[in-house]
């Protein structure tokens, strides 16, 4: 039996139709898969939304899940990837206590070491942004906790770009449309 310990990233393209997000996530719910992170936003193809969903599972389940998602009317394509096949990023925002930062100089140093950026400072709080992989962001979070300076912390869902050399969705849609037009012509 395979263990459910591999992090998979699903990239899904769908029409921008109300209710589809619900339909997509219900496939995970039915199979009792916990979604680790989810991001939905416009894609580079007009009218299509791009979902990035991460979860821990096994390949056999992922195959079935992607096929069941792809079956939903409105979903154009669903694919799953392991981490080596994609470039993946998250963004995090920290709201830190400015007095604590002034009190402990190491805080600013830690932020710099982690490539974080201080984007706003006022006497009450400062805002820090950082992008990177989950463990990089969590490492900064863990370090900052020792000074008890975190007022708020939020981490975005992952977004990912595939490392394929070809843009498979564009090719797939072009091929489908070509075939549709050929069939129409035949009628």
């Amino acid at each position, binding site marked *: 039996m395979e263990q459910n310990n591999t992090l998979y990233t699903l990239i899904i393209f769908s029409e921008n139709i109300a209710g589809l997000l*619900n339909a997509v996530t219900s496939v995970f719910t039915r199979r009792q898969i916990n979604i680790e992170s989810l991001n939905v936003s416009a894609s580079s193809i007009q009218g299509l939304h791009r979902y990035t969903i991460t979860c821990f599972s096994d390949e056999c389940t992922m195959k*079935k899940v992607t*096929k*069941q998602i*792809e079956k939903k*009317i*409105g979903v154009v394509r669903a694919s799953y990837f392991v981490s080596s096949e994609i470039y993946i990023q998250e963004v995090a925002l920290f709201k830190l206590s400015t007095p604590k930062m002034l009190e402990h100089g190491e805080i600013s140093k830690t932020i710099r070491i982690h490539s974080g950026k201080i984007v706003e400072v006022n006497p009450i709080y400062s805002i820090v942004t950082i992008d990177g992989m989950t463990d990089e962001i969590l490492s900064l979070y863990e370090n900052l906790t020792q000074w008890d300076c975190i007022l708020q912390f939020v981490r975005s869902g992952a977004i990912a770009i595939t490392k394929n050399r070809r843009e498979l969705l564009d090719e797939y849609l072009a091929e*489908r*449309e070509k075939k549709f037009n050929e069939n129409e012509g035949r009628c």
Partner: protein
Amino acid sequence: MTTKQLSGAEIFMQSLIAEGVDTLFGYPGGAIMPVYDALYDYRDRLNHILVRHEQGAIHAAEGYARVSGKVGVCLVTSGPGATNTITGIADAMLDSTPVVVIAGQVGTKMLGTDAFQECDIVNVAHPISKWAYQIRSAEDIAPAIKRAFHIASTGRPGPVVLDFTKNAQIEKAEYIPQEIGFLRSYEAVPETKPGSIEAAAELINAAQKPLVLIGQGVELGNAQEEVRQLIEKADMPAGCTLLGLSCLPSAHPLNMGMLGMHGSLASNVKTQECDLLVAIGMRFDDRITGNISTYARQAKKIHFDIDPSEINKNIPVDVAVLGNCKDTVARVLELVKPANHQAWRDSFQSYHDTERTKVIDPEIHPAGGPIRMGEVIDRVSTQAHDKAIVVTDVGQNQMMSARYSRFSESRSIVTSGGMGTMGFGLPAAIGATFAAPERTTCLFVGDGGIQMTIEELGTIMEQQCPVKIILLNNNFLGNVRQWQELFFQSRYSFTHLLSPDYSKIAEAYRLPYALVTEREQLNEAIATMLATEGPYLLEVAVMEEDNVLPMCCPGNDVDDMLLEI
């Protein structure tokens, strides 16, 4: 030049007619009234059947679709009208039945305000429908109807729900006839992978002990003839799923009977002995496979299906042939060499003999005692010359109907397979009579199921639907009782039920009625029923604690079948 402006409701009528709709099953209510008002002027073209409950409308639409092969249409109001169709929508989804449900909805401006009879039916229907969509403007009606019928009827068919806001029904717009353009998010028929046809033919040509599993997909794809030719050419015995029973005539020499939990002993035992399984348009449901970890492990497997998500879902296969089986089976047929597997074919016989002696003969030719369900069904089948449309409810009546009805024509079994919806039978039989008014429609129903949708006797009375209702009354929820006997130490918890006086029910609904309590009355009563024009209610008092056998108990290996209890 001014264009002709029609109300949304009229555009809706025009769009239905453009889809070839001539029959719809429905029930009016507040949020669908503009549509019903327009329907008043279209009565000559659209035959609206007023049911007595919206669940009846959806099951009737399902029955209509299953027998006609066309899309069944169901028209209801918002809120409770829409939610009453939910069971049928889920039923149609699991059984791949093409239906379009049009439900009224409050006006767009009222959406989300908890308005009277407002229900978010699109979101309710999403997980149990093929497509659910809200129409919010009159301009959107024609494209939505076009797409709805296209999606419901193509690929793997299924239910579509249209949530039709009241303002869209009233607003005016131009009716523009629609064409289905390129849909980037819907591929009805997936591409057949290169090499899969050849690989399938190769496995069939190499097989010594092949077994074909015929599912409803064969009927949905109109591939009955192609499949028959394939099994004859390659000399492959075949078993049918419950929903696929009428894909291959029962009398065909290669038909080895139904598969699965209450299927034929031979087809289930041979599943574990064959060297090749060829599954066509079926989905390896747990009622077919029993224990999946031991299911046909010795065999290579080919799976023909139109739905890519069914491939390797339950049972991993060696060759998947995607596409419409009418096309793919025909292509495989060309590459298959004629074969003779007589020894393999003959090896089924001893299991048929065992089943006949231990199960079938006692059920259909009992020496005495109470009337058995099986003998009623066997005699109805014989007197209807194996040509009737067999509609069943769910439970023992269903399994007995599947086992003891014989089929000679396609699209002749209408039953709730995946969902197992009690109450399905009576309204589905109504739908069947509108799909094939020239055929005999027999409904086998139990005393539990008939009481779930008994109000549809009103529809039968009003429409004079020629449904021959055979009520197999055993005063029990028989299938649950059987499981209680087998798995719960005969603790009959709430499975004994009291029935009304059906003679009075029949009288109230002005239906011809007869009650059979003695075996000697049976043949004549069936003959009278079949000879009577229009509807008929034949109640048969059957053995109270009869069991459906053989039985592969849940989770057991498929060849581990109980022949007696």
